[in-house]
């Protein structure tokens, strides 16, 4: 039997709200199946199961907000079935690092009622990002009913949306409602009209001035931790993007909009390639130890309307063609903007790129997203005067920066790494 836990989806997540149960008790689930959706400060995130088995029961009601690490469901794994006869220890028991699930003590005989006292408001600790997958096999013991803890002043009674009918609400409005802690179940339907952002904003105008959004607080917590724990160093280099820009224009001239490339896809691919030669910038720093990642999962910092920021990963960007990277990036941004993405995308990035796009400023220095060890910043490309031989010529250039972790690398290697990225960008046809 394993518990399916509310996963931690990054250094800045403490709690989430179960908003969709995609499987019923008794149904089979297979590793990789998406069985639930959870609303977090970052939007609605689909959660995968990591083992084959049968969904036993849901332990948390819809629209209930619970801490990271809280069991959401019980799963009878195939492994259980196979070893049901032997009462051996469960194998490979990972050490749960999440805030302890509010797993109450087994009822004591003298207790007339095994009334589980909900813990006090959980300490506002930043969950370690190295939380194991949402599922942790636990020894088979009789499970008392688990009462969800109370979080702040949000009571955890059942809160359903209408008559289980999904509210018609725009993604940005849903996000704002989540940020402001508005119970969607209390909103009344008005002749099936959808809720727009301004409706939600109107509801919260009074709280607006005093309360920073939850997402902003979460970002602040993660970034504070980064600055506290990671000895950042910073480097900057000018990249000539004229070739890259001409390559993109030439490619797009004959293409319909849906298959067009953007410079962003070239940035991703160039970084994914460059880390192959500079592995000390690609991976996770955990427990005083750097684990270099063979795969290049490049996190892409995406800003959300309303001020949020997330950096989900484009997986194996080095192994994909440019068109595939572009498709993956476009799909990711579309899903993130509509407030829906997958858990793995939030936890598995091995390096991040943050780009200001076409309307930004010259350069930005990123803050490393733990447990990663590097972030590449790409300023807004602009025509600048460059000296070529005796002449001054206009070239499209951008300032590329690196913020990296001194526990793992140093400035000399960082400089070579930046040059490697620029080299790839100057030869776009080889990407």
């Amino acid at each position, binding site marked *: 039997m394993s518990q399916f836990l509310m996963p931690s989806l990054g250094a800045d997540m403490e709690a989430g709200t179960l908003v969709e149960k995609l499987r019923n008790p008794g149904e089979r689930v297979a590793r990789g199946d998406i069985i639930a959706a959870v609303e977090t400060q970052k939007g609605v995130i689909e959660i995968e199961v990591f083992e084959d088995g049968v969904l036993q029961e849901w332990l948390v009601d819809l629209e209930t907000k619970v801490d990271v690490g809280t069991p959401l469901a019980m799963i009878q794994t195939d492994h259980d079935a196979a070893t049901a006869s032997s009462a051996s220890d469960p194998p490979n028991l990972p050490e749960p690092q999440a805030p302890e699930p509010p797993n109450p003590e087994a009822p004591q005989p003298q207790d007339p009622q095994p009334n589980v006292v909900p813990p006090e408001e959980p300490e506002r600790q930043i969950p370690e990002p190295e939380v194991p997958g949402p599922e942790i096999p636990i020894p088979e013991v009789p499970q008392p009913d688990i009462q969800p803890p109370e979080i702040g002043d949000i009571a955890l009674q059942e809160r359903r949306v209408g008559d289980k009918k999904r509210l018609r609400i*725009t*993604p*940005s*409005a849903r996000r704002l409602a989540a940020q402001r802690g508005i119970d969607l179940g209390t909103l009344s339907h008005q002749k099936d009209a959808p809720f*727009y*952002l*301004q409706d939600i904003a109107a509801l919260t105008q009074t709280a607006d001035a005093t309360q920073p959004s939850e997402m902003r607080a979460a970002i602040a917590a993660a970034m504070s931790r980064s600055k506290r724990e990671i000895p950042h160093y910073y480097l900057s280099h000018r990249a000539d993007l004229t070739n890259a820009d001409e390559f993109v*224009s030439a490619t*797009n*001239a004959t293409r*319909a*909009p*849906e298959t*067009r490339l*953007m410079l*962003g896809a070239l940035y991703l691919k160039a970084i994914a390639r460059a880390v192959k030669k500079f592995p000390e910038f690609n991976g996770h720093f955990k427990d005083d130890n750097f684990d270099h990642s063979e795969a290049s999962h490049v996190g892409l910092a995406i*800003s959300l*309307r*309303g001020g949020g920021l997330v950096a989900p990963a484009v997986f194996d960007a080095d192994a994909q063609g440019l068109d595939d990277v572009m498709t993956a*990036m*476009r799909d990711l*941004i*579309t899903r993130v*903007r509509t407030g829906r993405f997958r858990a793995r995308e939030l936890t598995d990035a091995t390096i991040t790129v943050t780009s200001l*796009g*076409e*309307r930004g400023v010259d350069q930005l220095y990123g803050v490393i997203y733990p447990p990663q060890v590097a972030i590449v910043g790409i300023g807004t490309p602009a025509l600048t005067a460059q000296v070529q031989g005796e002449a001054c010529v206009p070239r499209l250039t951008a300032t590329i920066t690196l913020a990296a972790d001194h526990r793992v690398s140093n400035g000399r290697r960082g400089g070579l790494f930046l040059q490697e990225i620029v080299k790839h960008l100057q030869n776009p046809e080889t990407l």
Partner: protein
Amino acid sequence: MNDDTIQTALQQELYRIAPDIDIDDIDLTADLREEFDIDSMDFLNLVTALGKRFGLEMPEADYDRMRSFSDLLGYLQAQTDQTP
């Protein structure tokens, strides 16, 4: 094609991308990306959606003619007039 239909379609597609921006609050002749706070990916999605809706190629070379809301509306009207 009716001009009202085109304007409605354009507003619908912009609403999909920037639901928090009210068309009444923006400068129709100013830079569309600034006014609606949309980035290059949003703009590409807008161009893709409009291209599909009206059966237009929306080439990158014409992006300069799609700078503001009014420009884009005029561009769509001109292009759809040419298509039978």
